[in-house]
């Protein structure tokens, strides 16, 4: 495996909206522990809530640190520990150089790509988590919507991921691992890029939880079993009574009690015609017994 093969570009892409507004700036809305802003022409400075980040600035996090950026179109990115994140001003491209990030964009605001050396990601109306170990594995978990991941160098190698699915690419691999579904409820409960990390709920977090709850359920028979249960019970009754010979009718029919209802309307009884009784053959006349004399 060539070294360059390690520098694969994994793209996570979703079709862009027709009139997507480019990213111009983002506001730092949360910082946890060590978060700094790196500018190519200035010394690094600690990030603070309310700082405006533009394209020429990178956001770097230290160990056990996190940050949240919010774009004017309500797109949210959260960056995990030991990450370096930036975006291209005037486009919808982002870059993650190692670490983890969460991307959440409302529907209709446009798509784009997130790139980071080996990783590129883009999203419209989708939430996903991205994990990139520098020189190592890449993982993508879709929280909501669909995400297409592919090698940027060879887009024919691709995978479509749906909510709850994880796609991964081991270091140096030339093909994706098979996708599988993970327990979203558990992931949502443990990811430090969500509420477990001290962040507030994402817009549409209730929807996320519904998707996660849906994973817990069984795909069983369709609803309204109530109606079918009633049909089963009354059909059984009707069948049993329909197969029960009608009792002999009393000569005097008592007057029905007020409000009393027969369980099942009586099945019409067929008129039974007795078979014709065969006419007995004429008794043969016995021959006269010869009288015997005494």
């Amino acid at each position, binding site marked *: 495996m060539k070294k360059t093969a390690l520098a694969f570009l994994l793209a996570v892409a979703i079709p862009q909206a027709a009139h997507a507004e480019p990213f111009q700036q983002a506001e730092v809305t949360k910082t946890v522990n060590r978060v700094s802003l790196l500018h190519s022409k200035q010394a690094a400075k600690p990030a603070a809530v309310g700082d405006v980040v533009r394209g020429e600035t*990178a956001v770097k996090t230290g160990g056990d640190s996190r940050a949240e950026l919010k774009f004017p179109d309500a797109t949210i990115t959260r960056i995990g520990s030991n990450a370096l994140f930036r975006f291209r001003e005037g486009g919808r491209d982002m870059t993650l150089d190692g670490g983890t990030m969460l991307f959440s964009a409302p529907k209709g605001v446009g798509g784009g790509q997130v790139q980071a050396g080996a990783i590129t990601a883009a999203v419209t109306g989708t939430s996903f988590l991205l994990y990139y170990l520098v020189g190592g594995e890449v993982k993508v978990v879709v929280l909501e919507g669909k995400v297409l991941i592919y090698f940027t160098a060879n887009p024919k190698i691709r995978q479509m991921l749906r909510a709850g699915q994880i796609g991964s690419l081991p270091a140096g691999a030339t093909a994706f691992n098979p996708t599988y579904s993970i327990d979203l409820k558990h*992931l949502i409960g443990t990811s430090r890029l969500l509420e477990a990390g001290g962040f507030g709920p994402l817009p549409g977090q209730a929807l996320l939880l519904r998707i996660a709850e849906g994973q817990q359920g*069984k*795909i069983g028979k369709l*609803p309204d079993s109530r109606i079918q249960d009633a049909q089963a019970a*009354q*059909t059984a009754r009707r069948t049993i009574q329909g197969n029960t010979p009608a009792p002999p009718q009393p000569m005097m029919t008592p007057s029905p009690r007020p409000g009393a209802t027969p*369980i099942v309307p009586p099945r019409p009884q067929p008129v039974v015609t007795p078979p014709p009784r065969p006419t007995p053959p004429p008794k043969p006349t016995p021959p006269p017994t010869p009288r015997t004399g005494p």
Partner: protein
Amino acid sequence: MGAPGARAQSNRADTASRTASNLSLTRAAQSTVNTSEYLSDAESDFGEQQAVSIRAGGLGAYLIGGSGLNYTSNPTLSSGGGKGDMYYFARGGAGIHPNLTGGLYLDGHISEEVFLYSRNTALNFSHLNAGGGLDYVFEDLGQLNLWVRYEYDRYLGGNLAEFFVNNSLVTGLGKEFLIGDTMAIQTGAQAAISLTANPSSARRNEYDFWLGWRWRIVEPLELQTYYVVSLFYYPEGSRVDVTQNVGGSLNLSLTRWAKLSASVGFGTNSSTDSFYNYTVVNVGGTLGLDIRF
């Protein structure tokens, strides 16, 4: 691959130039990171990834409940149409669904439901269902579900006198096809072979096929429509019934474990014995509970 591929192409050059200019920045950023700490932090930030198929680790216990008021146009399911009636419905139950290995789950459940009619009180009944079996989820086939279960059903009349008991072996498969974020098509088939029944005259084998459409209109509100066709074969007498049910419900999730439903359904049965032909319309509202542990 057109759109993403084209974007990839167009961005590649830009990426390359930016990658070069930022390489030193990146190296500077990562150089101070201890690898094990880096891994640990990254994993913690990302969250624990438990495959659904090996998720459980517990009983997967749940409680269900429900109560509602309904109208049925033909409570006796008579071929003449009958006179409409209201009925009250209540249900309670519990179950477990632990994962055994891979995509294999154990299923155990028990429920009791009661139907109380307003005027046709002689139609009142209660239904006990208990069963268990195995479910298998095929992850590679889009979570296709396959199940095999034993089911026990006991029906008591309003006077608590047993009028029907059935023991059956049930097998089926179902799958949900997602259509975007908010819609899904559900389809499935199931066969329930009656092993024994009392009285045996009502013993029947059931073969169901269904198609559903689910639409999450807005977050708490969901529309569910369905069509179910069921074929019933009565070994005694060789009677065959074909029952079709079509309907829908509007479900409002009040909490993660409670929802309100308004439903309407139409059913029709065609039998080789015309005595059992019927049509029925059902309309109702239900409060349902589903608490999962």
